[in-house]
Every structure is written in structure tokens, then in C-alpha cells.
């Protein structure tokens, strides 16, 4: 399974870098959420289910939604 961990790490780096260069802010926010989801998998693999749950619930779900709402409110989300 170590190759899967490596793949997830690589994917995380790629998605994170893409989030900084992509023009569409909504896509960038989604990518940040994806990074959170991947890192929560890594936390789970390293035997920290508590941290993984926090990361998945707060990092991937709530933060993404708050960012999207903020984008809408500032009129940048189009």
C-alpha cells in the first residue's frame, strides 16, 4: 500500500500547485478541498482517525462551503 500513499502525496502536490495557478476561483476552492480530503486519507493511514475526521469534516466540507459562499458574496465566483 506504500505506493498508494506515494501516489496520494504526488496527487496532493499536483492539485495544490494547480489550485494556485488556475484562473477560475471556484475550481481553486474545490481543489483546496480535494487536498484536504487527500490529507485526511494520509492521516488515516498514519493511524490518526481523530485528526482524519476533523480534516475531512472541517477542511474538506465546511471550509469549502464557507469559501464558496464568500466568493458568491464578493461577486468573484463567476
Amino acid at each position, binding site marked *: 500500500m506504500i505506493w498508494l500513499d506515494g501516489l496520494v502525496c504526488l496527487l496532493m502536490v499536483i492539485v495544490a500547485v494547480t489550485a494556485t495557478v488556475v484562473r477560475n476561483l471556484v475550481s481553486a476552492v474545490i481543489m483546496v478541498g480535494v487536498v484536504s480530503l487527500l490529507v485526511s486519507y494520509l492521516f488515516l493511514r498514519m493511524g490518526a482517525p481523530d485528526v482524519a*475526521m476533523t480534516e475531512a469534516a472541517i477542511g474538506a466540507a465546511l471550509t469549502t462551503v464557507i469559501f464558496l459562499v464568500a466568493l458568491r458574496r464578493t*461577486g468573484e465566483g463567476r
Partner: protein
Amino acid sequence: MTRTIITIIALLAVAALFWTLVALGTPDELGAVSRHYVERGIIENRGANLVTSVVVNYRGLDTLGEVTVLFLSVTGAAFVLRRRERKPVDRAASKASEIVQTGAGVLVAPIMLFGAYIFLHGHLTPGGGFQGGAVVASGVLLLLLADRERALPHGLMSWLESLSGFAFVVAGLAGLWVAGSFLANRGVLPLGEWNQLLSAGVIPVIYILIGLKVGSELAALLDVMMRGEAVAGAHGSPRSPRHRRSGPSGTGRSRGGRR
């Protein structure tokens, strides 16, 4: 060009810095503090689940601090965002599609139940007050997504939040009174035992309080943000016509997926 090169050099420097961390690897044996926690955690703090024992008791004051930080940030957000006066918006425009509404009707109750399960079983299974509270808040989020103008019980939520924060401090002071240190979990309380819901002394009580507090706080934050959004267009800003038009007709566009 120069900037790109500098960026690459800086990134490589950071990578080199962190590589020492990777090369360090995982230690084979516990440090002094960890060993103390592992060996004496159950006796000193009544928690069978060591993670919980550390979060709620050994580092309980830090947890109280985290809850306070969350409380202050939500209060600040509410203060900044609530200033616009509310105007009744078109109810039909604030409703989501049939799929989201039906899905919300089916899913909200299980999600909230799961959140309650997580913080009730915080001392036995992974998860705890924060995680359970976040899951409860995401249930509320689904409700709000289904119907933007849904009236949440604000009075109940603020009472829950204030009372649970207050009770957390009271539980800490009770530890001070009974066992001589803030948030202490000693004395007459039952010892932590696996598969026993009523065990681990004061830990489940505190986790329930944290769960209620975090859940109501995050739900209030989401409510303030999304409600403000529904009204934002109707308040004389230059973009207001565009905003309002995007209500009913914007569902077909790319960002309409959330509605």
C-alpha cells in the same frame, strides 16, 4: 525569468529544510511525556481511549482555549455580516431543486444522528466533540442548502451554545473543587472501560458539551453567511440587479450546482 528561478530556488530550499524531517523518520520508542501518558493515562484520567484522555484532560485547558477561539471568530463573523438589515426575498427563488430538497429530507436526520453518535462515543471511538459538532453543522448546512430561507431556532441555538460553554467551565471548576486541579478527572468518577458508554468519568460529559457548542456555533456561522448572501443583492450595491436576476435563472449555470 529571474523571478521563476528565485521561486524554484526558494521551493528547493524549503524542500531541503523539510527533508531532514523525512530523514528523521518515526521514533521507535516513546519520549518521557508520551510514556507517562501511555502508562498512567487510564489511572490518572479515567479515559480508556488515550487520545480522548489527552485532549480532554491532560490538555483540557487547550481545548477550552480552542472552543473560545471558535466562539470569538463566530461572534466576529456574525458581527461583521449581520449588519445589513434583512429583507424578505422571493421564497421560490431561495428554494433548491427537487433533488436537493428530497435528498435533504432523507439525509438530514441520519447525518445529525451520526454527529450525535460521534460526540456521545468520543471516549470510546475515534472522534469527539469537534468532529461530532462539525458533522451536526454539515447537517444544518444541508438544510440551508435545500431552503435558503429556512428559519432556524436561533434562540435555542444561542442558549445551547452559551449554556454548554458555561457548563464546560463549571465542569472544570468542579474538578478543581473535588480533585484539586482544573478539569481534573479523578476521585469518585468511574474508571474508563472499553465498550461502556457510561465510563471515563467526566470525559463524555465534556465531549457532549463541546459537541453541542461546536455544532451550534458552526451552524450559526453558516446561517449568518448564507442568509446574508440571500439578502446581499437587495441592498443598493451596484451589482444588485445582477445578483437578483441570478436567483431564479442562475440555477442552470456552472455555479448553480450548489443550489
